[in-house]
């Protein structure tokens, strides 16, 4: 089933409305498996809005309405029969500001698997998740300490480890480095490049250099519409559309 479908996630004319205001305007795009796809564009909430539509995080905001379809494993996750909880198990999310639970490091990792009755061997799960998030060596002796005692960059890697522990297919990252210092940012970027081997990663960023450093493909959004998309190198070297060119060269944004 998995291999028969070519994209990890495919949006078809996906629109997001805030009340009557169309924030995301008919975006269609197929996100490729095991690639890092960056969503860039000038400030405004549109990029995050699009990303939050990818795992139905808008469900909790009554005034948001979604049109179009979003295909995951040959199923439209906005179909009435689709189960948003199952969707979020397979499509994890890392937020702008690190948001660990006010619990121990270990409990943060096992929280998701526990409530979903997934794994039995939590000890191994904690170790493997933290290792994959490149945090194990820093915290292995203090797993019972509060997650809030970690630095911002460590907290964000813990949040990544937390979503990895759910064994997702796709990890959504909503400006994961915007609250971090350059050093922590570098470690997260390095991590993203290694995670690509196992997961499909979508990342929203306002930092064009970051998009260039870590992504395989880029989507350029402007005023709710997908202006241009394609291979990262090609997009940065010679974009086809003038608007993209101007944004990438820093003429606006």
């Amino acid at each position, binding site marked *: 089933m998995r291999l028969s479908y070519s994209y990890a996630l495919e949006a078809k004319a996906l629109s997001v409305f805030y009340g009557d205001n169309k924030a995301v305007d008919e975006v269609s795009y197929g996100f490729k498996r095991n690639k890092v796809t960056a969503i860039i564009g000038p400030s405004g909430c549109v990029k995050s809005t699009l990303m939050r539509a990818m795992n139905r995080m808008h469900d909790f905001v009554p005034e948001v309405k979604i049109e179009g379809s979003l295909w995951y494993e040959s199923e439209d996750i906005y179909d009435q029969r689709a189960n948003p909880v199952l969707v979020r198990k397979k499509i994890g999310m890392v937020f702008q500001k690190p948001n*660990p639970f006010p619990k121990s490091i270990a409990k943060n990792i096992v929280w998701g698997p526990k409530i979903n009755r997934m794994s039995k061997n939590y000890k191994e799960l904690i170790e493997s998740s933290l290792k994959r998030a490149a945090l194990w060596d820093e915290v292995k002796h203090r797993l019972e300490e509060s997650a809030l005692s970690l630095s911002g960059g460590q907290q964000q890697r813990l949040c990544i480890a*937390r979503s990895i522990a759910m064994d997702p297919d796709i990890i959504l990252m909503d400006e994961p480095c915007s609250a971090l210092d350059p050093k922590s940012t570098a470690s997260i970027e390095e991590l993203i490049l290694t995670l690509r081997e196992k997961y499909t990663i979508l990342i929203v960023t306002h930092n064009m250099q970051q998009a260039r450093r870590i992504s395989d493909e880029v989507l350029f959004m402007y005023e709710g519409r997908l202006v241009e998309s394609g291979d990262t190198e090609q997009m940065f070297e010679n974009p086809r559309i003038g608007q993209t060119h101007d944004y990438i060269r820093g003429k606006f944004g």
Partner: protein
Amino acid sequence: MQVRMVTNSIFKGFCFLSTFTAVAILVMLLYHLFLKGTSHLDLDFLNSFSSRRPGRAGIKAALWGTLWLIGLTSLFALPLGVATAVYLEEYAEKSRLTRLLEINIANLAGVPSIIYGLLGLAIFVRFLGFDRSLWSGSLTLSLLILPVIIVASQGAIRSVPLSIREASFALGAQKWQVVLFVVLPAALPGILTGAILSLSRAIGETAPLIIVGAVGYMRFIPQTPNDDFTALPLQIYDWASRPQSGFHDIAASGILVLLAILLLFNLNAVIIRQKLQRYPS
């Protein structure tokens, strides 16, 4: 310029005087209580029943009655209050009806306690036939503190940051799991503080208990919630209203015990808040 400086110091002096008056009255009250009450305050006082002779009277029945009341009242009021707050904050649609409900609950917190006593008399004592038992007393006190617990819990739930709710939803949690395992634990310090403060209000209540028929003179400890009961404030009231000055002295001793319990409660609230406070913002 000169005038403004003078106004400034007059205002400052006025505020200081107000504070000083309040503290001074409190100190005088405590001094008076200690002077009269400490001579009777010993283990015998805690461990004997009331008596016709003030020298042999104690607060055993009242102390146990108060402990029963605290236990039963928190058993009824806490789950009910917290669940109501959860419903209002997490599930109820933000409609005008909900808003009206919330305003009414907040207003109920200000209703005089004797009104609750009358309500308890009508519902628990007469209609449900609980008579003058601990059931009637504790259920009435539960009604009394329920609005305060609801309002405090609502505030605590509301202050749990959106970010950790989102984190749990993104991990495939259902709504009830988010509420039960993330929101409530994070809101716990606020909820407990509100609960303890409202319980300490309940401990000091006299009027509603008199109305629902708590007795002033009792020579046994209530064994089940079906039993009659008395409570510390009632015992104090009973002694203070007698003509002999000996009873006035032991009333002061009773007040000291009551104050000690209240102080312990409030201290607990402070400690819990300090210890569990995990979200500074």
